[in-house]
């Protein structure tokens, strides 16, 4: 038997090593994605695809009442979530990172404290804050009562519910962008920062004119991840406001809308994979294209800086 060429054996070996990962990715990522693409074009009879209906499901979720109103409301809430997290959560993260960069006494323990909630699961954090914000037994209103303030039912008021969940998200997640910004800041050469200091730059000038452009790669990562996270937002609103986005849809986001359209809710067992898949496909396309375009511009900004 002739000896097989070395390269062939090497190729086989690589294929053998790649196969399990590839199989898992195909089975659990690519296949469901492709099947939801297919399902989006069908009506459903129970859980089985029934008739091919072209783009009618997309038409329904985007333009037909009552689906469309829910879709656009949910998308708007996702936009609010993204904007608030970018400003409040990531803005705070930037300030925290700058404070940590100064290596003041105790900065190591603070770094750990800031990062600690990130390791908790979103479900735990959601339940925890749902309890803290409870109108009768909650810590927050009990604390406010000490100051003589009658706190509102945070998660029950349409005007405060979404904000409360965004706040919880920021509490949970602020350590992550802080760490990324800090890593970016630590990569800036000491000479640059010292030179700026000698020229009389204040902290404000350092933060806005010197460090900000130099951490552009970190900003790219943080902005992209926040964008994807905000538009795929699900665990926190699901735990804190339920599948319907209580109260009265004030906390409804695309993730919840997709989930209850496809799988039904506790009160209605109606499953609708057709419209659900259409929503999933739209979400995927929206997130993929927008983050693609965003990434392109953010990258360009990195080079300019």
């Amino acid at each position, binding site marked *: 038997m002739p000896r097989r060429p070395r390269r062939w054996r090497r190729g086989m070996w690589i294929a053998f090593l790649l196969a399990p990962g590839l199989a898992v990715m195909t089975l659990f990522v690519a296949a469901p994605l492709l099947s939801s693409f297919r399902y989006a074009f069908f009506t459903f009879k129970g859980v089985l695809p029934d008739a091919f209906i072209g783009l009618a499901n997309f038409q329904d979720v985007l333009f037909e009442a009552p689906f469309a109103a829910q879709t656009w409301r949910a998308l708007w809430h996702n936009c609010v979530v993204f904007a608030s997290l970018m400003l409040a959560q990531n803005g705070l993260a930037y300030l925290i990172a700058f404070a940590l960069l100064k290596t003041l006494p105790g900065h190591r323990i603070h770094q750990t404290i800031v990062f600690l909630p990130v390791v908790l699961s979103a479900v735990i954090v959601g339940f925890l804050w749902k309890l803290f914000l409870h*109108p009768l037994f909650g810590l927050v209103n009990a604390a406010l009562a000490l100051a003589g303030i009658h706190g509102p039912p945070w998660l*029950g*008021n349409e005007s405060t519910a979404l904000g409360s969940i965004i706040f919880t998200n920021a509490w949970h997640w602020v350590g992550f962008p802080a760490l990324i910004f800090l890593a970016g800041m630590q990569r800036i050469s000491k000479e640059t920062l010292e030179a700026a200091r000698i020229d009389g730059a204040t902290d404000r000038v350092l933060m806005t004119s010197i460090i900000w452009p130099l951490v552009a790669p970190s900003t790219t990562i943080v902005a992209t991840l926040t964008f994807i996270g905000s538009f795929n937002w699900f665990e926190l609103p699901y735990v804190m406001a339920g599948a319907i986005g209580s109260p009265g849809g004030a906390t409804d986001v695309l993730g919840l809308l997709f989930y209850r359209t496809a799988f*039904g809710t506790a009160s*209605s067992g109606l499953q609708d994979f057709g419209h659900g898949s259409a929503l999933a496909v739209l979400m995927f396309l929206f997130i993929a294209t927008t983050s693609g375009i965003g990434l392109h511009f953010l990258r360009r900004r990195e080079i300019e800086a």
Partner: protein
Amino acid sequence: MIGKHFGRRALAALMMAGSLGAAAQAGEVTFWTWRQEDKAVYQDLFAEFTKANPGITVKFEAFPNENYNTIVTTALAGGKGGDVLHARAYGGLEAMAKSGYYLPLDKSNVPELANLPDDANASESLRADGKVYAVSLAGQTLGLIVNKDIFATAGVAVPGTWAELLSACTALKAKGITPIANGTATPWMDAIFATVFTNPFLGPDWVKDMLAGKTTFSDAKFTGALAKLLELKPCLPDGFTGVDYATSQQLFSAGRAAIFVGGSFEIAPFKRGNPKLNLDFVPPPAPAAGQPTYVSRFFDSGFAVNAKSPNQADAIKLVRWMATKSFAEPAAAKLGNISSLKDVAAADPLLGKIAKLNETAMPYIGLVYFRYEAPTGTDLLQDGVQKMMGGTEQPEGVAKAITAGLAKWYKPFQK
């Protein structure tokens, strides 16, 4: 070497997976349900069935409630699944039965269907063909669960009319007791809350007119009934818009609230949670003295036969038995519910009282007639009531949204 071992393990894994999917043995009927918590009760009952039908054993298999529909429908789509399946009712049944997975039942294969009242059989029928697909297990009744001791200690009478309810609220609040435990943060509770209190204001004739297309939810009667709910705001817990289902249950079982608006299915958990609770179940207040009042009712599950079961003859025997008193009476006693069968005596006096109230019950309208397509009647009702109680929507707006939402698929409203 690695490849060889891997191959063997993969083969072993495949064989194991194969054996899991293997068909049940002859004489064994598998029963699928989402009621893991009732396992012991069902196994006792099935042992009785085996005594009466030697040679047929029943295997109990439970799945998580949230995933039950998906698991069953996936299994059925692949030609597998239990022989007898615990089925949902109304729209929940329709979602699973219209794909042809369940065997149609009639007098020829299950003569015992005659033991069930028509509205129970209707709850397990499809609108398209009118055929019955499952033997209804139990009905649930919605009304007021009352803590008798709180009323007695406070010296307040359990209210029988709307005016009495409002004055009872004031009296209880003055003594530091929350009159009604319900909050509005959990949407499905809002639909129940609204149904319980609005039904006496609507009356059975209004339901007939509405179903006949003579009127809609936007009429003055329904809008007026919704507006009545706003008068209950002072009776609810402080910050009720943020009080969810679990909190409402805690308030009531801890004896901090006098009334819990809910279903008969709440009674058993309340008694288990606090055996000292001295409970009563009463209908909601009548609009005025001398006027009738009604509890609300729906049927909630049943037993279906898998249309592709290899063991169909035995499966039908089991379902036929489940439609007789031999099953229904002990099941109702042990599960603490109210059997769908006619003339089944209730072991518990409170459940007996509810069974009596059921004789004049009105339907849980949003569920019984409007939970077939999206948007469902209960979804629209709960969404609107939650907003209305939160102060961001008016009764007229809620009523209009319900009619307009249902008109998407409910023909009589499409004008």
